[in-house]
């Protein structure tokens, strides 16, 4: 299970690097793009954790998180556009 830590560490470094744009972004859409990328990285991380614990039911958690992140990004984009 040692390579699993390496992959999780690599994805964690990517999440920290995208956190830079969340704190530093000039406009709100910059921060929202960074959060969108962070949700995609988090789905990959959840799938890796499902393999780490050896339970297939955790993949459903990743799928539901992907659905909710998509709906949230759509709602925030409509709000910034002035639709809601």
């Amino acid at each position, binding site marked *: 299970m040692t390579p699993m830590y390496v992959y999780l560490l*690599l*994805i964690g470094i990517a*999440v920290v690097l995208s956190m830079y744009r969340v704190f530093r972004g000039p*406009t709100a859409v910059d921060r929202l793009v960074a959060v969108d*990328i962070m949700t995609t990285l988090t*789905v990959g991380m959840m799938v890796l954790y499902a*393999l780490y614990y050896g339970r297939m039911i955790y*993949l459903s958690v990743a799928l539901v998180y992907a659905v909710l992140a998509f709906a949230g990004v759509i709602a925030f984009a409509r709000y*910034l556009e*002035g639709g809601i």
Partner: protein
Amino acid sequence: MIEVLSWIGQALILIGTFFYFLSTLGLIRMPDVYNRMQTSTKSATLGSLGVIIGVGLWAVGKGYSVAWISMTVIIAAFILLTNPISAHVLIKAAYEKGIPLWHGSVVDKYREFLEREKKGERNEETGAKSGTEADAGTGSGSRTGTQEGSQTGIETGEVRT
């Protein structure tokens, strides 16, 4: 024999994490909202495809059930379908909000499309009006329409190719 699947899965996960790293690097490096979206979303989608399908192959190679592959393929297909949609909606919101392009950007196809749409509507209106006024002299009506179009094109500075 089945350990080959494990090695293939780990190679796919490595490729996926490399593309994740590239996407966040583009998110930091690029100067504009539009460039950031364009560099980060595509590579993050490809990287998540690699990571998720690689996890499925690795799980089968470790001796787990074959249902891991179907479940991971479902998640990967969902991300492949919804990630471009969310990026498109985000960037359309940014454009509607009026965030300017980077000064080095040279092509703005959406603005050209909006101007062409507006001009097309105006040409249709003038053409219909000239047709109702003089049914025989359609040549003069169309000529004035093209002159109006060229004048608006010059004053908006549109490059027509």
